[in-house]
């Protein structure tokens, strides 16, 4: 595997290694009420021990109400020429409604920030031939990462954005002035990179369309997963295992339309002995999923949180070698590596529990749940 183009410069940071483990937290206001970015910064800062200053990041949903219908491309550039090339590329394929520098606080403690730009774009119907619009956006965004030297798309969803960089997450949050944004779902990640270097593009969350993923652990199945995803034109360019999680979820949930109950059986499949004990119907389905999607099983210890504009899902590996706590309070649903980080912003949650390994803790917006139920009534 070749070294990715981005790692050839000052984007990387060699620091003294501090032993820790990644920290994750996410919350969703299921009634779509808005919270500014200061809560998520406070929550992730509670788990400072889990990161080592080599990466932190955030995803916010509902943060761009004025451009809710356009794709919001967040770009990192190593230099001006990368920006010029990328902007030409974007002009060629999209109609750019607005282009601006992402506002930052230069006094925040982050290391070597790249140039940070965002673009709100429409897709012209005429540009999309023989594929649907989402595939078009995915394809072009992966093309920027793969082909344009010094440019990296950190997110490309609608009414959402990913903000990430090298530093402690709370400093990265300050740097991006997240307190100036209001969103209904927020994710955050404090990084302790184990296998790859800390660099701006390699921080979490990873995004594709509306998806954002934050991850603690490591996927020893990375090679198998990556080769399988390549068959579906997902190019893994970032030298970090979390990338395959984002692409796998996109493939299974968006393209193949599997519900989360099936996705959990693919990525964190029950052990064969447990499958043998299942009731007949469930066993047949689970075995079929294992046969069809075997190469998308995630092996190794992990917990991650995935969100899109309507859902938030937390899951660990099937024997739960990484932590995950769930809490609810009124309309808000919380997922975190540690209970204390939830309590930092919600001192007395109504419910707190630990999900079983391989069993997704999934939730969705009330309005989405309502629509889904209606469909069930119609079809049932």
């Amino acid at each position, binding site marked *: 595997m070749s070294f990715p183009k981005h790692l050839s410069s000052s984007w990387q940071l060699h620091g003294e290694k501090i032993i820790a483990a990644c920290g994750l937290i996410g919350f969703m206001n299921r009634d779509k009420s808005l919270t500014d970015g200061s809560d998520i910064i406070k929550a992730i800062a509670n788990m400072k021990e889990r990161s080592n200053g080599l990466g932190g990041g955030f995803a916010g949903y509902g943060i761009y109400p004025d451009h809710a219908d356009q794709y919001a491309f967040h770009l990192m550039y190593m230099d001006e020429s990368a920006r010029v090339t990328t902007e030409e590329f974007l002009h060629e394929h999209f109609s750019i409604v607005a282009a601006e520098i992402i506002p930052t606080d230069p006094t925040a403690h982050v290391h070597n920030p790249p140039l940070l730009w965002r673009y709100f774009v429409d897709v012209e119907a005429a540009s999309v031939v023989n594929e649907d619009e989402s595939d078009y956006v995915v394809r072009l965004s992966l093309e920027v990462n793969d082909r344009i030297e010094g440019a990296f798309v950190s997110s490309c969803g609608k009414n959402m954005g990913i903000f990430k960089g090298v530093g402690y997450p709370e400093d990265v949050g300050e740097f991006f002035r997240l307190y100036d944004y209001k969103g209904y779902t927020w994710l955050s990640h404090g990084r302790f990179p184990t296998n790859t270097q800390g660099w701006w593009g390699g921080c979490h969350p990873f995004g594709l369309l509306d998806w954002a993923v934050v991850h603690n652990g490591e996927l020893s199945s990375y090679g198998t997963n990556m080769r399988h995803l390549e068959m579906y034109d997902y190019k893994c360019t970032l030298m970090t295992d979390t990338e395959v999680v984002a692409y796998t979820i996109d493939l299974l949930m968006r393209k193949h339309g599997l519900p989360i109950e099936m996705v959990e059986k693919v990525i964190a499949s029950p052990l064969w002995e447990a499958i043998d004990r299942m009731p007949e119907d469930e066993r047949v389905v689970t075995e079929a999923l294992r046969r069809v999607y075997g190469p998308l099983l995630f092996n190794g210890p992990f917990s991650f949180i995935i969100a899109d504009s309507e859902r938030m899902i937390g899951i660990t590996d099937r024997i739960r070698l990484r*932590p995950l706590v769930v809490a609810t309070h009124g309309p808000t649903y919380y997922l975190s590596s*540690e*209970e204390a980080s939830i309590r930092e912003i919600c001192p007395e949650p109504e419910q707190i*529990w630990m999900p079983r390994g391989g069993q997704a803790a999934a939730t969705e917006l009330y309005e989405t749940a309502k629509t889904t139920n209606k469909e069930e009534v119609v079809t049932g």
Partner: protein
Amino acid sequence: MSKMINPMQADVALDRSRVTDHGKGKVEVNAQDLTYRELNLLLRVVCDEGAKHLLLKNVNGQRYIATDLPPVKIDIEGCAGNDLGVFMNGCEITVNSNCQDAVGNTMNAGSIIVHGHSSDIAGFAMRGGKVYIRDNSGYRCGIHMKEYEDKIPVLVVGGVAHDFLGEYMAGGVLLLLNRPSVQGATEFGEMPSDLIPSHHIGTGMHGGVIYLRGRVEPYQLGAEVAPVDFTDKDTETLHHEIDEYCNHFEVSDDERQELKDSEYVKLIPVSHRPYGKMYAS
């Protein structure tokens, strides 16, 4: 004269404004927003100065509490962080809320009473002392507990525990009371309440004993353990620990009696030297 402070802590700020002395050795410490290093250094200093009873307010996620303290009494208000009581030697801790991963990690003596739940690896490698958790516990509780002569650690969980409980246990007593009243509804889904929900129980176990209130199917057990009959000594241990648990958490007399009268499964290792044969002959 205060004892020498670990040079590793030389850069940690000591915020004395957090300390309120209530007299007679009772000292309150406000842990709000302190890092674990700031908090633990402060606790060490006040103990060196003679504190016997610490009241910790506004704890939220600070790690390693009580790791290097003399045997004092500690009341914790708030959610205690990972490794509560790690390597602890004789403190008596009460937590009025939940605690996180690895409570009682390698503790040597003392007690930890948790008025709530614990997350994963409770009682990790305990070598002495007692841990009582009122509600449920997470994955791998009691992992690698051990014992030597009269040092026999005890871990009691009032609710149920996730998979791999008693994994690699080499000694000690692990008791699961399976009280329906302390189990969250969401966690384990619908299942018959007498069936213990854990799988891979006692995997790799080669010492100590596990008592489970309820029943288990053979497929839930690791290959290294088997159910055996109770002796009078078991009943005595069980009743003693049930009483201790009920006293700590104010369980009604009726339920106390019910817990004592219930059916329990006793699990012990099939072999004390699982790998002995591998190297013999």
